[in-house]
């Protein structure tokens, strides 16, 4: 029995010597690394987020590579970006656009299609640069209010501020003052 045991032991020892031992060590190390990476992703929500999100986002960017810059922005910022692009594309570069008051962008009884930043002049100006925006609330504080050339229409607000009202009213558009 002990002879048989000794020979098995020797056979195992011969399997794990020289170059073979090196391969075994490499495989063990590889297994250890795989286990470590799996554990990091499995037990930490931060790593899990990176692993899942990066995978899906790279796939998304491959699938939608044909989208142009504006469409990509609209994917991120939704209707707000679409509306601001409409303002930019429908007005000349030197336009001064009157924006509606907060109560129109964010009515109390319904969910708004806009994001909060649309109330921030500095944020909006980035998307429509070099056009300028003036908010209804800045009527008394901003001298530029007197130079308004266009009116942004949101939820049918703005027609009363425009010089010429077209026959058919649109919910979202921009008009000459």
């Amino acid at each position, binding site marked *: 029995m002990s002879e048989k045991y000794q020979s098995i032991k020797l056979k195992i020892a011969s399997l794990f010597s020289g170059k073979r031992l090196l391969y075994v060590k490499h495989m063990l190390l590889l297994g250890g690394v795989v286990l470590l990476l799996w554990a*990091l992703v499995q037990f930490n929500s*931060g*790593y899990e987020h990176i692993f899942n999100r990066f995978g899906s986002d790279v796939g998304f960017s491959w699938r939608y590579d044909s989208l142009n810059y504006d469409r*990509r*922005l609209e994917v991120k910022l939704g209707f707000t970006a679409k509306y601001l692009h409409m303002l930019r594309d429908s007005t000349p570069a030197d336009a001064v656009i009157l924006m509606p008051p907060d109560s129109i962008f964010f009515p109390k009884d319904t969910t708004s299609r806009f994001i909060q930043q649309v109330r921030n002049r500095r*944020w909006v100006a980035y998307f429509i640069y070099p056009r300028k925006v003036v908010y209804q609330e800045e009527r008394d504080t901003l001298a530029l209010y007197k130079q308004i050339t266009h009116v942004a229409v949101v939820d049918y607000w703005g027609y009363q501020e425009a010089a010429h009202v077209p026959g058919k009213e649109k919910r979202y558009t921009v008009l000459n003052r």
Partner: protein
Amino acid sequence: MGLLIVFLLGLIVVHTLAGNVSSLLKVGVALPVGFGINAFVMFGLDIIHVPLYYVSIVPGMDAIIILMLAVYLFYRTSPLVYLLEWRLRLGQVIDGLLSRFHPAWVLLAGAVIWLVCAVVAQAFFWPVFIYDSITGFDFVAKTVLSEGTLNNSIFDPQYPLYTLRSVYPPLVALNFAFMYGIGFSSSHGVVALFYASMAVSFYGVLRLYTTHFSAALFTLLLIITPEYASFSILSSSNPVCAYYVSIGLLCLYVAYERDAAAYSTIGMLLILFALWTRPEAVVFAAFAGVFVLWTGIRKRAFVKPIVFGVVCLAVFASWQLYVRLVLPVQLPETTVPVAVFDTDKLLRMLEKVVDVTFNTRYYGVVVFLFFAVMVMNIRNMIVYKDRLALLLLLCGGWAIYILIFYAIDTDFKPGSTNWIEDAYRRGLFCFFPLMVFYVAVSRLSTKLFNQYLNF
């Protein structure tokens, strides 16, 4: 082509100033150094009223600098010797990689490459959409390109569109403008390239102390830090600042520890560029200055520290003077001198600091790993003074960084501005490379990786 010129500019400047730095580190720092010089070139052109909307001028200026340095290098070193040297070094690098070629390293290196490619691909795909950049650096970049100067219509006193972030030092904004100028539709690429440079540079610095396997493992651990990787896809100046500060400090540490002047030059250069990324970098520059001075005193070499101090002051002052004398802006002061010590305020702030610092969703295992290794290494620190200078750089910088937040004019009560949850959270990126580096090169890890796992 524009990016290639920036890379070559950085590479040739690094090679001229610090030829003895490892080839991998040279490649890693090439783009960040190129972007840094690019910003100074653009600022200089703006000062002498050359419009920056002439897209070809900046790469043209960069190309002239490259040619001048190439001619200088040609005459400094015999081209034949130079080529032979490079061939030899390249051979050494390839031999080194092949002799250490094993499956675990391949897996780790593959994961690093996958992560870097994923960040770069997403950065180049998505337009800028984060608030800070839209009302800050990216808006400045777009107006610089459109109007040809930093002093443009967003600083118009009659119709001001600037925010505090618009007057941050201009390295990031100017390079964003450069990206738009050379034809990219989004400026995100700059930040993502800094992320890629971080991976290469960090691996390069680690390789000076440890094995390929260990370097790949810890590089992956650094760049997979969830918050850092996520922010590198966005148009944020934090990863840029983190690159300059952390790799700069690591190079200064290598210079101190190995008495290698070339690393000290690169370290100082990177810290200098850090000064032009974000306002808080001035604290790191001051701290790096003290470290350089201390190293200088130990080695009785004072010229470099003095030159570093003077150049840092000049660089810092140049932008401050520009903001105060040229740009018509009025900015609120956010920091106040700490005249009275307020224990309650400090405790409230520290509570938030601890919450954010030890949040594993933001930073994974990095912070915990750092403290665990530090505790396990206490004996080595006492007996062998193991990596004390590195710990001093890391913990000293961190302590001063926290003190800045204490000086901010806020009470840290619920409902106040989220300074710790936002600014501190992202500012911590500067310390992660140093933390991971410490974990990788502490006496314990070195023994584990160089002795037991080195086959």
